């Protein structure tokens, strides 16, 4: 392996978030919660959220089993969304998280990277009725029934 290829994907910040995830552990009680899987590789993530006045996200807690990319991305996301409103996060484009990750991702690994964001949006939707991403299509309906 050329060090370049490895370092590009698993840059220090990613490995740090993977090995020392921020906001790790589920909140109880929580105002919003959801879990999700990446069916391709079996990554699992559960997210809990505490909301303050005006539905501002005060705390996020997550747990999961999965690859370095999915776990690190969720860890970074959990810091990123604190202080934002549920409505803002519902509309947050995935590109913002991907920029934060700052690594080149193949389509397969992209799904790993945005799993946590999807689960967070689902949690907020279930608790607050915020919109789900349009590209989820009718599949979103099944997700909410769980």
């Amino acid at each position: 392996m050329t060090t370049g290829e490895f370092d590009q994907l698993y840059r220090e910040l990613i490995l740090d978030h993977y090995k020392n995830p921020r906001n790790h552990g589920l909140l109880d009680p929580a105002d919003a919660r959801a879990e999700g899987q990446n069916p391709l590789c079996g990554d699992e993530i559960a997210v809990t959220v505490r909301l303050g006045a005006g539905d501002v996200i005060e705390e996020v807690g997550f747990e999961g089993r999965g690859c370095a990319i999915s776990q690190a991305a969720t860890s970074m996301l959990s810091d990123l969304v604190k202080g934002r409103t549920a409505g803002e996060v519902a509309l947050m484009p995935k590109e913002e998280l991907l920029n934060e990750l700052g690594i080149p991702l193949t389509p397969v690994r992209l799904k790993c990277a945005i799993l946590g964001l999807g689960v967070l949006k689902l949690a907020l939707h279930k608790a607050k009725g915020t919109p789900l991403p349009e590209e989820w299509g009718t599949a979103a309906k099944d997700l909410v029934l769980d």
Partner: protein
Amino acid sequence: MAVTAQPALDAYRVRADFPIFEQTIHGKPLAFLDSAASSQKPRQMLEAMVRFYETSYANVHRGVYELAERATAGLENARERVATLLNAPAAREVVFVRNATEGINLVAYAWGLSNLGPGDVVVATELEHHSNFVPWQYVARRTGADFRVLPLDDSGELRLDALDALVGGGRVKVVAAGIVSNALGTVNPIETLARWAHEHGAIVVADAAQAAPHRTLDVQALGCDFLALSGHKMCGPSGIGVLWGRAELLEAMEPFLTGGHMIRSVGLERTTWGELPHKFEAGTAPMAEAVGLAAAIDYLEAIGFDAIERHEHELTAYALGRLSELPWVTTFGPPLERRAGIVSFDVDGVHPHDVAQVLDFEGVAIRAGHHCCQPLMRRLGVTATNRASFYVYTVREEIDRLVEGLYRVRKAFS
């Protein structure tokens, strides 16, 4: 099949037939350890398909001109070739489908919907690929039959002692089982299962997708009623598979897909079905793919299935030995005697996706995921595993490179 000792397989010579190995991946020679997902293609098969397209191509059957006759001969010769490979009593029992999954769906729909109902029991194994699990679970639900799962022991072998308990007052109608597990390499005792199934009046649907590329298959000796395989896993092209079924069962069945070619006569109110196998082959057949599959079978038989099995057995023994040197690697699956050329393993504390990604940087291709076996993954207590699988062109150096790569994985993530 001939039992005379076939000469040992020379994997370096075989490898030279596969153009895919002429390139580098990430600057490294390709170590391809994912043949259980799909095999690479020998030049002989590719050339047979090109030759067919260049010299003998037209739509099959009914055409009265020379090219149509050549194309028809290509397709029907391939059918004969498959029948011989499987020791099928008749070539008309060989139905061309897209892949093993479609073959099993054909049985689940065309046989299952007419023959299953409340009080009936459909048995699949906990080891099954989703392809021989989901269709039965689905059709059982549609028909009101009970879907029951034969459990595994801790090493991933079928618990035959649990069979009788599955009956539970119902009528067992179907037993669906793979011959070789794609996830663990377990070689299942299909003959024993078939005897049990037939004692209970059930049919046996054998998924041979993972067996056909690697070992001699004899549908009469196995005692199964249906058997499905995929061409792409056995040096053939993608887009063609085979369903073999006992003629009397196929004849009694309703069709699966309807349309052109599968009919005897079409009236305004009613249509009658064609003879076997055409009743199950609606639409234009995968002609060039059938020619490719026949060439792949020729290729594999020239090497010899006994030699292939021996080669893969040696590689598996070598891989299990090398992996046992790594205390932070856990392997899954049965002992070597009952295992085909597949090794599933876990690297302590590293998700399979990360393992496979780092190995890819080394030019080593393995599969990481649930291998379309989520019930099995749950039984093993994991969400995914790493899987290395071997074939005719696999050499020991590739396994050495896998082990070297795993040291790098360990270093990067610990």
